[in-house]
């Protein structure tokens, strides 16, 4: 609650001079539009998470319906960064027992649809999945495929909104609108913390513009002295009352994975 009159006159004069200098300077940084600022933040956040190479992890999903009943699913993942394109991922289901051994191979792309294949162990069959299906549920959870398939800046148009504290942590707040017409969302609001540009919260608005879901990120830990990974995601669907918690464990980086670990042959022998 600083009142201007409490600032010493000399300080005020210096501040005014600075303001004047900024106002008349040619092409100053502050001339950045909200769109440019949003894109810059998204690119910076993406850039800070570039170079991790490959990773493996285990994911436990806890699905809760509106009556409070819950069901647990577990998968293990391997992921690999691809230069100039989206990541490659291989996901193997561990539980429930009736889907154990089912596996999903996914090649994310910066633009256009992702490539996805599902392996059905009972039939020994690899089935291509039409991947316009971005808004479909991932494993019956409150997460859609597009929520977990990567945050590449190319997938959105951005607009910086404001800075604000989230649970005491200073954050940049940016609106982003999906470019893909198959997206299930009209827009998303993202909170990135100022210090590390880690995503802390996302609000998802449905095609009609109503708030659909809120996702929050918890328990960030740093790997390789550089890369931050949240170990718990909490998604709440405001329209259905259902929720999903994702818990990540056993993160391991630099496993030496190559393209050969992300083929249909690798998908068929994954377990």
């Amino acid at each position, binding site marked *: 609650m600083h009142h201007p009159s409490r600032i010493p006159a000399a300080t005020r004069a210096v501040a005014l001079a600075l303001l004047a200098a900024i106002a008349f300077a040619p092409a100053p940084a502050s001339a950045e539009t909200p769109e440019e600022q949003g894109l810059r933040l998204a690119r910076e956040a993406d850039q800070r998470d570039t170079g991790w190479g490959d990773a493996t992890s285990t994911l436990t999903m806890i699905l809760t319906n509106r009556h409070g009943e819950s*069901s647990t699913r577990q998968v293990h993942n391997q992921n690999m960064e691809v230069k100039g394109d989206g990541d490659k991922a291989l996901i193997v289901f561990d539980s*429930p027992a009736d889907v154990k*051994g089912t596996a999903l191979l996914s090649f994310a792309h910066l633009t256009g649809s992702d490539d996805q294949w599902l392996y059905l162990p009972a039939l020994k*069959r690899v089935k291509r999945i039409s991947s*316009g*299906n971005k808004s*479909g549920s991932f494993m019956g959870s409150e997460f*859609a495929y597009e929520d977990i398939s990567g945050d590449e800046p190319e997938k959105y148009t951005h607009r910086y909104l404001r800075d604000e504290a989230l649970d005491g942590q200073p954050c940049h707040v940016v609106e982003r609108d999906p470019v893909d017409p198959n997206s299930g969302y009209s827009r998303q609001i993202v909170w990135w913390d100022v210090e590390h540009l880690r995503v802390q919260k996302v609000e998802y608005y449905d095609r009609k513009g109503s708030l659909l879901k809120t996702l929050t990120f918890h328990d960030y830990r740093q790997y390789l002295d550089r890369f931050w990974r949240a170990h718990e995601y909490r998604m709440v669907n405001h329209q259905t009352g259902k929720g999903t918690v994702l818990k990540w464990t056993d993160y391991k980086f630099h496993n030496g994975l190559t393209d050969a670990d992300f083929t249909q042959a690798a998908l068929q022998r994954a377990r």
Partner: protein
Amino acid sequence: MFVRRLIQPGFFRLIGLFLAFFTGLFPGFFPSLFPAGGATAWAAPEVTGSLGVEGRYFPADPADPAQQSGDASAFADVEFHQSTAGGNWDLTVAPFYRHDGADSERTHGDLREAFVRWINPRVELAVGLRRVFWGVTESQHLVDIINQTDAVENPDGEDKLGQPMVMATIPGASGTLDLFLLPYFRARTFPGPDGRPRTPLVVDADYALYEHPDRRRHPDSAVRYKRLMGPLEAALSYFHGTGREPLLLPSATCLALGCPPGVLVPYYQQINQAGLEAQVVAGDWLWKLEAIHRSGEIGGGWSAWTAGYEYTFPAVWGTYMDLGVLTELMGDSRGNNTLSTPFEGDAMLGARLAVNDLGSTELLAGLIADPDGEWGAFAEGSRRFGNHLRVELEARLFGGGTPLAPTPFYYLRRDDYLQLTLTHHF
């Protein structure tokens, strides 16, 4: 007869490919077969599988008084798997057994898989019994030929017997090559006199005739090359050897050869089959094509194809339910009169609803019909209760044809059934 086998060009080419492969590439890998550390470390073994009970109810009076209106059975489907710590070698053993209360032929066991595999970035080699699926369409699997159908399990033909093989998978920059040597033939299973659904005359599966004097020991061979080109995926395959689909001969025609009287006898012919699979993904659309040309059978060469699409409506009706619809058309150069297949000029309409709830509830329904009025329909629904139990309800209906113009489904017209399965997965 040996001479006849030698002059089969497909077989000869494949043997050549195998020889070139083993002599040319294998020695180069030899050092890595024996890691410097000495004893190989094995990872913890893994046992998964399912135990289940199944009941079937046939509402119509049976065509044969030997058959019952109900059937109960229990089954076990277990898989044991172990790999080396580095993952270069693995062993899979998957026995299956079913005890059936009505049909002694459906009481049967099989080693679905029992193979050792060596995995290397340049080649994957497997020796033993395996199951391999080829194809992209849903209504029928024309191209799929490696494994024999375990026809007593379900008339949908999706269950397969373990096939002895040596299989090499060679990944390349442009595509993946699979080579198969199939040294022993598995004969198709058929329902016994008490079994339903079945043909009016019982097929005696214990007795079979073979075109080739080596009978089950004729070494079959196959090759498949699969390529991914952006949204298009295509595969070409060739099979040479004993056809998996038998011709069913009235035993009166072979009594002189010792056939038992009053039954149908399977006759397995030497065939060559070229197959094509193609699939294009475009947004929510999946376009599919399978085509084969088969030669060597009595009556000469023939071709058949299946083509269609699958379309997915994600998150239908503002829910998390996914609805998939599919349409497939089938053609067969043998024309409408053939009793060899019910799918000579048919269309299939199907729908699949994935509810995406806690119990992963799924509903699947389909109708196959041809212009002559022959038709078959099915509906399946399943959901999980708790973490281990899955309950599945299935109905199958068959119709069309007349006594004077019978069709394969005409013979099954009294065998419509409802099936309930409870499966405990572990």
